[in-house]
C-alpha cells in the first residue's frame, strides 16, 4: 500500500482517515499490522489504535488524522479533546475536512470549542424519511381501498 501511494499508508473507517508515513512506525514486511478506528459515545469520539503483531507501537513521526466536516456540530470551532486537553484542528479548504498531525494514539473526542461534546445536534430522522413514510402509507391505504372495493363488488354481484 505504501509503495503504491508514495510512501503513505492510508486507513479509513467511519469517515475518519489516518495517513501513516513509511517511517512513522517500525515494522518488517512479514509483520501483521492492525489499525483500528472505532467510534465510541455515539460517534462523538473515536478510539484509534495501531498494533504491530498485536502489540502497541510508538509513533516516531507524526501521522495525519482527517475528520470530515460532518463529524462536528454546526456551531463552535471544531476541536479534539485528547488525553484531557483540547487541541484545535487545521481546516483544509480543498477537502472541506479537518486534519491534525499527532503521535498520540487513544481516544479522540470531537468537540466544538464553545459547546460541550455531548451537545451534538440531533438528526431529524423523521423529517428525512418523511417521503418514505408518506409513500408507504399511501401504498397501504391504496391497497386496502382496492381490496375492500374488490370484495364489495363481489358482494353486490
Amino acid at each position, binding site marked *: *500500500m505504501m509503495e*503504491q*501511494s*508514495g*510512501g*503513505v499508508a*492510508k*486507513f*479509513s473507517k467511519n*469517515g475518519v*482517515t489516518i495517513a501513516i508515513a513509511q517511517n512513522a512506525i517500525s515494522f518488517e514486511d512479514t509483520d501483521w499490522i492492525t489499525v483500528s478506528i472505532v467510534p465510541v459515545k455515539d460517534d462523538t469520539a473515536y478510539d484509534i489504535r495501531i498494533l504491530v503483531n498485536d502489540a502497541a507501537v510508538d509513533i516516531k513521526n507524526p501521522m*495525519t488524522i*482527517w475528520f*470530515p*466536516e*460532518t463529524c462536528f456540530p*454546526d456551531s463552535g470551532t471544531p476541536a479534539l479533546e485528547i488525553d484531557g486537553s483540547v487541541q484545535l484542528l487545521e481546516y*483544509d479548504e*480543498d*477537502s*472541506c*475536512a479537518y*486534519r491534525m498531525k499527532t503521535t498520540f494514539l487513544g481516544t479522540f473526542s470531537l468537540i466544538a470549542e464553545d459547546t460541550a461534546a455531548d451537545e451534538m*445536534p440531533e*438528526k431529524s430522522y423523521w423529517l428525512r424519511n418523511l417521503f418514505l413514510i408518506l409513500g408507504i402509507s399511501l401504498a397501504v391505504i391504496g391497497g386496502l381501498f382496492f381490496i375492500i372495493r374488490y*370484495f364489495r363488488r*363481489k*358482494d353486490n*354481484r
Partner: protein
Amino acid sequence: MKKVPYRLYVGMLLAAAAASILFCFLYRYNNKYTQQAVQAIDGLLVLSEEELEENPCRFLWNDWIYYPGALLTPDDFAQGDPDRYMTYVDLSASNRLEIHQNQGNTNYGCGTYVLRCKLPDSSSCYAMDMPEIFSAYDMYVNGTLVMSMGELQPDSYQDATGNRMVIFSPDESGMAIILIAVSNQSYIYGGMIYPPAFGTLEALSDVREIRLMLCLCIIFALLISAVISLYLWLRIRHINAFFFFCSASP
C-alpha cells in the same frame, strides 16, 4: 356475504411462493455483492492467476479510494497520493458525491474514485464493463485517458450516460491504476453507484452477450404481451386488457 373462493387464496400463495423462490435464486446466483471473488481492500486489488482462472469476471464494489469534492487527474498523483482528505467507499445506491458537506449528504457535486489493481499477467488484456456513472466522467488507466462521458468542468458541464467496455493492459509490473473523476449537477443519483465488472476480455464479452440476450427476451415478451392485450381490447373490449396494454407497451 359471498364466500371468497379458496382458489383465490391458493393462487395468491402460489404466486408469492414462486416470487420468493425466484428472488432467492437471483440473490444466490445473480448477485454482484455476494459473489465469492476477491475484492479490493483499501483501494488495492491483488489478483493471482489462479484467482482469475476461478473467477474470470467480478464486480468491483468494495473499497474504492474516494476523494470527495475534487476532480483529480493522474498529474495529481505524480508525486504520490495528494495530501487531501480521502476515504474508502463501497459502491452502492446510497453513495453520495459530497460526503463532507454540513450535516447532510448530497448527490450534486464532484469526486474522484481510484482503484489500484495488481494483475498477474502484464502482457494480457483486461476489460472493464463500465455501467452508468452519473452524470459525467473521465476515466484514466495508468495515466492515459481511456474514456470520457459528458463534460466534467462546471463552466461547460454536460451530462451523458451509457454502458461502455474499456480494454487495457497493465504496466510492466502488472499494475493498473484506474482513476475516475466524476461530476453530477443534474441527476438524482450522483457518482458511481453500480459496480463495474472487471475481468478477462472473453469473460466480459460473455457477460455482455448474456445481458443483451436477456434484455432482448424481456423486450420481446413485453412486445408480445402488448400486442395480445391490444388485440383482446379491440376484439372483446375488455378494459383490463387495455390497462395491461398500457403497462406493457412502454
